[in-house]
């Protein structure tokens, strides 16, 4: 049987008293483009580090192509872009790329890499003088220079403005056409949607959803509704409606629904006055909450604490 690109078997990881991952199992097949999505501190980077063999799982096992991820053979077949990794400021772009190319058995040509990452006019610039966005492109060039079968991107567009983010997405898509497996982490639902065929949502060290982007969106595309009524609505008023996380506190009503119009129409049909009506789109934090089905307010607080 052909082994999967990446496998996590029942992986748990704790740092001292902090449990970063709780028995996570994941199988990524060859050619898949997978986004690992979750709020800051959810365990995305830890998952990637374990997949790469940069961190050892406390329990469980990680495999790359069915091999231990730390082996030179396995690492010769992957490319990695990590968060906040630096570059030696006194080397030139071309020098660093040429150095990294010697690490891999079948590297792409330097010219091709420079061209593909839009660094051709910066080839002889010292790395220390590059802007953040340009450095990000260098990291990407280093990640793909070995023509990897699996490309790991940890928050690849973190800190980029909207425009450079879109350009970066195009580069990732272009690389994906080579048939490589791509694993990227992001806390941006839009980014996951734009790039991935499969989205794995992680929260508090657990996988809470694993679905296609449309599947995830269907589960999270809700609106947050809140209003006050002139007098309390009768018990069971919303019972047969498609909404979740309903909270009725005297005359204050809040709920989440992907079709708020239906519920609101019913409210307006009563003789009850409605005030303070607010309809807001659900952010990622809340989307994740709606996936976990955890209690609203305290969960949001908790994830804010960690970010």
């Amino acid at each position, binding site marked *: 049987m052909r082994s999967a690109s990446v496998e996590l078997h029942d992986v748990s990881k704790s740092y001292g008293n902090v449990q970063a991952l709780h028995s996570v199992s994941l199988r990524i097949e060859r050619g898949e483009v997978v986004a690992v999505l979750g709020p800051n501190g959810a365990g995305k980077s830890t998952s990637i580090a374990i997949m*790469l*063999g*940069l*961190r*050892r799982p406390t329990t469980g096992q990680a495999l790359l192509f069915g091999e231990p991820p730390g082996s*030179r*053979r396995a*690492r*010769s077949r*992957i490319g*990695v872009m*990590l968060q*906040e*990794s*630096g*570059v*030696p*400021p*006194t*080397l030139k772009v071309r*020098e*660093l790329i*040429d*150095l*990294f190319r*010697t*690490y*891999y*058995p*079948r590297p792409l040509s330097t010219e091709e890499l420079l061209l593909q990452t839009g660094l051709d006019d910066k080839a002889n610039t*010292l790395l220390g003088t590059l802007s953040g966005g340009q450095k990000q492109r260098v*990291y990407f060039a*280093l990640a793909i220079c*070995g023509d990897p079968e699996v490309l*790991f991107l940890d928050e690849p567009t973190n800190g980029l403005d909207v425009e450079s983010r879109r350009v970066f997405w195009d580069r990732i898509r272009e690389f994906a056409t080579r048939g490589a497996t791509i694993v990227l982490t992001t806390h941006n639902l839009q980014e996951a949607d734009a790039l991935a065929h499969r989205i794995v949502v992680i929260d508090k060290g657990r996988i809470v959803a694993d679905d296609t982007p449309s599947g995830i969106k269907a589960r999270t595309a809700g609106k947050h509704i809140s209003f006050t009524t002139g007098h309390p609505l009768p018990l069971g008023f919303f019972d047969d409606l498609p909404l979740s996380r309903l909270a009725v506190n005297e005359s204050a009503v809040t709920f989440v629904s992907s079709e708020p119009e239906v519920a609101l129409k019913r409210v307006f049909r009563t003789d009850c006055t409605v005030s303070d009506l607010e309809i807001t789109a659900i952010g990622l934090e809340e989307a994740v909450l709606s996936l976990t089905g955890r209690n609203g307010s305290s969960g949001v607080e908790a994830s804010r604490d960690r970010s």
Partner: protein
Amino acid sequence: MTKEVPAPARSESLAAPLLPMLVAQLKAELIKLWRVPAFLVFSVAFPIVLYACIGLPRSDARLGGVSASAYILASLATYGVVSVMLHSFGNSLANERAQRMHVLMRATPLPGWIHLTARSLTAVGFGLAVLLALCLFGAIIGNVDLPLARWAVLIGSLLLGSLPFLTLGLGIGYLVSPGSAPAAINLVLLPLSFASGLFVPVSQLPDLVQRVAPFLPTYHLARVAWYTVGAETPDVSGSVLWLVAYGVVFMFLALRALEREETRQFG
């Protein structure tokens, strides 16, 4: 291996050859260090400037049974090579940790020992450059007259004898926080050098310092150098043993520091 591995689609080479990797890494490490002005000035140029200031004006005086210019050349060659070993290693390591580059390097197929070897060779290369420059300066301008073989022994024994300081630099590079590495290294290097008689001959140092000197690694390395230029130094085989012992201690320290870093960063 007992497990049967299906023939991979691209079987001609599963990993890149190591020798070109080592050569490229060595080249990169040399360039990296060459472009750091602070390193060039303090580790490479400083011993020569110091020699011009304190070695040359007394070229007709005598110290330890040889011309003062030869004696001081041996002292500053010791200082120069130790400084390069400590700084090149400590700084490049600390910088890499500051930039978090070492995590990315770890995820590449580059074996850690290749990286370490490239770094060590870089330090030895710069050490050789400092020694050559200093010796040329001493021979031509300082009128230090030694047979060619003696010069070779001086340079060779100083390079070999300074290897313990390479491991000390490694240990410091891992132990201290990245920003403070140069300061921490100087805090070790300068008092050690002073107390070992590298700037002022031991006989002119305060009493207490004179009593401490025979326990310092730099003192024993300097004794080898003084002996090589012909100074009246008693048998130096004891000093060689001291250096070996320090080498073992520093190696142990470096391994402990490395272990600590491993658990912290990659555990």
